């Protein structure tokens, strides 16, 4: 045979020739010293490359820092991120509504029953502060939270779809730019703040939602959106097409409100006013004159309520004295010491009077009540009689079981680490219970303390929400653990969870000891949750981040 080719020698050196060809080459090498010499060189070279490449690798990779490995998130992570985003958005919305809606109204309702002399001055001062500082603060906060969560979700999503870093950077830049041009969530909001008097003149029309805080506020013009005002004296003779929310010392409304009117003040007067929605008022003295009308329900809480106008639906009055001489489309329900139905008052529905003594009712002869007049005791929470005898009770418990089961399945799917939790031996159980107890007690206290600073209000709301969620999940976790203890390890998750929950539910409903069991199970479960979180988030403050 003629000399072996370079290719043959190279492949032969790497033991890569097909067997038949390899035999031929081998035979030739035995007879040809020049080819053999070349072959030896090439073989040598291959070894040389091998070892050299390894050396370099070791030298250069010495400086390589090993980045932290983050397990790919997959669907579960994505779901978690979305859950967190949703939760925060929901919380902020809830906060916004609660802060400016329910809480303040309810708090004033509650406070009127105690009667603090300067409560309206105090609350309007607080509100002035909140409106001045709070709105900006809140907007910044809301924007930040939503934006950062959205960013986090986007990043998560990109990571999940295996994009390289370059693509990710581009996406980030695009996103940030988008966020900058994206309109702020509360841009249709106008804020006016003056020391003395703010007047919306009769000729003026405001298209947005208007927020005013001032000593005296006079609204004569038209507000197309909602109107929120806080001040010492508020007079509204113009038109508010949206909702009206007022906090002031004295409020007089003689104009038109398209939506709901909600307010708290020491005197709240409707004089020839029309409210298109519900009326919610808390105050020292509330008056609705004969020219005024409320299209839907009216709820008033005050020391004395004087209602002369018309209410389209129900009237709820919580007061020491209620005087009614207007007309009512549906029922009148009064929680009061004294109620006077005067003049040509007309109630199309029933009158329910909750009072301590029936002598409190004065009814003029000319008053018409189409339905019944009932006297009721002050509401009592529970009716006597065994709850176990009612079918409703069992239906309710079944619904609770199913709800807890579904929530538990979803929760354990999202946080698989919890599946392998156990209650532990005696001392550990005590420790767990102690942690749970501390959490149960300390979170609300901490939340209240934080809330007092006003700045911390959002945090305290979140903490409370997380705490409540934790209380609910606690029993589910305990149920899962109990189910695992009773059934064999290999049993499927739905079975163990269901059995565990069933046992927990029965335990907490046992007569006499159910309440204590409930407390103990909740505390242990909460302790386990907190311990689990401490385990997964080392060195992180855990209480405010119960579930997320």
């Amino acid at each position, binding site marked *: 045979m003629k000399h072996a080719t370079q290719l043959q020698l190279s492949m032969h050196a790497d033991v890569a020739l097909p067997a038949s060809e390899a035999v031929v080459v081998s035979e030739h090498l035995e007879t040809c010293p020049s080819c053999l010499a070349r072959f030896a060189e090439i073989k040598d070279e291959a070894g040389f490359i091998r070892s050299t*490449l390894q050396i370099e690798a070791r030298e250069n990779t010495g400086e390589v820092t090993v980045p932290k490995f983050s397990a790919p998130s997959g669907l579960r992570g994505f779901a978690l991120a979305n859950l967190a985003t949703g939760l925060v958005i929901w919380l902020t919305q809830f906060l916004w509504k609660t802060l400016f809606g329910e809480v303040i109204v309810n708090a004033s309702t509650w406070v009127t029953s105690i009667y603090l002399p300067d409560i309206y001055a105090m609350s309007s001062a607080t509100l002035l502060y909140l409106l001045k500082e709070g709105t900006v603060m809140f907007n910044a906060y809301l924007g930040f939270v939503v934006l950062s969560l959205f960013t986090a979700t986007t990043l998560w999503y990109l990571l999940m779809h295996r994009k390289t870093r370059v693509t990710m950077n581009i996406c980030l830049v695009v996103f940030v730019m988008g966020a900058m041009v994206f309109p702020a969530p509360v841009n249709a909001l106008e804020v006016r703040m003056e020391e003395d008097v703010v007047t919306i003149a009769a000729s003026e029309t405001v298209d947005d939602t208007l927020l005013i805080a001032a000593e005296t506020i006079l609204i004569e013009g038209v507000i197309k959106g909602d109107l929120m005002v806080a001040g010492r004296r508020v007079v509204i003779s113009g038109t508010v097409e949206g909702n009206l929310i007022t906090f002031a010392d004295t409020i007089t409304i003689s104009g038109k409100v398209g939506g709901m009117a909600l307010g708290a003040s020491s005197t709240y007067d409707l004089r020839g006013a029309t409210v298109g929605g519900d009326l919610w008022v808390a105050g020292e003295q509330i008056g609705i004159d004969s020219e005024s009308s409320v299209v839907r329900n009216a709820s008033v809480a005050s020391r004395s309520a004087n209602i002369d106008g018309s209410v389209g639906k129900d009237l709820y009055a919580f007061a020491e004295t209620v005087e009614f001489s207007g007309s009512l489309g549906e029922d009148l329900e009064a929680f009061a010491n004294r109620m006077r139905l005067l003049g040509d008052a007309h109630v199309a529905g029933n009158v329910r009077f909750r009072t301590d003594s029936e002598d409190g009712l004065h009814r003029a002869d000319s008053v018409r009540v189409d339905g019944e007049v009932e006297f009721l005791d002050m509401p009592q929470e529970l009716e006597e009689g065994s709850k176990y005898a009612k079918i409703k009770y069992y239906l309710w418990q079944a619904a609770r079981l199913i709800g807890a089961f579904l929530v538990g399945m979803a929760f354990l799917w999202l946080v698989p680490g919890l599946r392998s939790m156990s209650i532990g031996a005696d001392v550990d159980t005590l420790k767990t219970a102690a942690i749970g107890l501390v959490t149960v007690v300390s979170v609300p206290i901490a939340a209240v303390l934080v809330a007092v600073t006003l700045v911390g209000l959002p945090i305290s709301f979140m903490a409370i929400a997380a705490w409540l969620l934790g209380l609910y999940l606690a029993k589910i976790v305990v149920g899962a653990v109990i189910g695992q203890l009773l059934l064999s390890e290999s049993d499927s998750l739905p079975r163990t969870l269901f059995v565990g929950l069933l046992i927990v539910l029965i335990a907490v409903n046992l007569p006499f000891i159910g309440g204590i069991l409930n407390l103990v199970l909740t505390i242990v479960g909460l302790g386990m949750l907190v311990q689990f979180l401490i385990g997964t988030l080392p060195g992180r403050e855990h209480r405010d981040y119960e579930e997320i």
Partner: protein
Amino acid sequence: MRNAAFEILYKDYYVRVFGLCRRLLNSSEMAEDAAQEAFMRAYRSFGKYDTEQPFWQWIASIANHHCIDLLRQQNRTGALFGDEAAELEQLADVDAPVLSKLISVQEAGFLNKAVANLSAKYRVPLVLAYFNQFSYEEIAQELKISRNHVGILLLRAKQRLRADLVSDTGEARK
């Protein structure tokens, strides 16, 4: 459990995988991403990992695969590894001295520089064969070319390295 085990393997093998990716891709930055991605993929299919097989072999095949995919994406014009017949024709006939005659092990830097200068067409098979210790068969499978083609590419790669080093070391030693 799966997490903990994987974490250990990750720490042990990251540097090697990174080194492999850097050799294949010729860029530290891309290699970092590629190594991460390789481990991500490994993590996802960790359930299918056969513990009889050495982990290095498994993770290396994932990394190779990913890197070659990346290179293919970069090189949109035609086949990344050229045409077998055309490559064969380009083989140099001259008997250049082999690498081990040109430099010593202490001068590994020269060789590495030369390897980095090779185009992906030659660099990838070279790295797979001599760094990764793949057989021709495995390389052929990975690159989707014939075994002979692999031999030709490797020979071409070595010839280029020799030529490069002849001029390089010549200059350096002057």
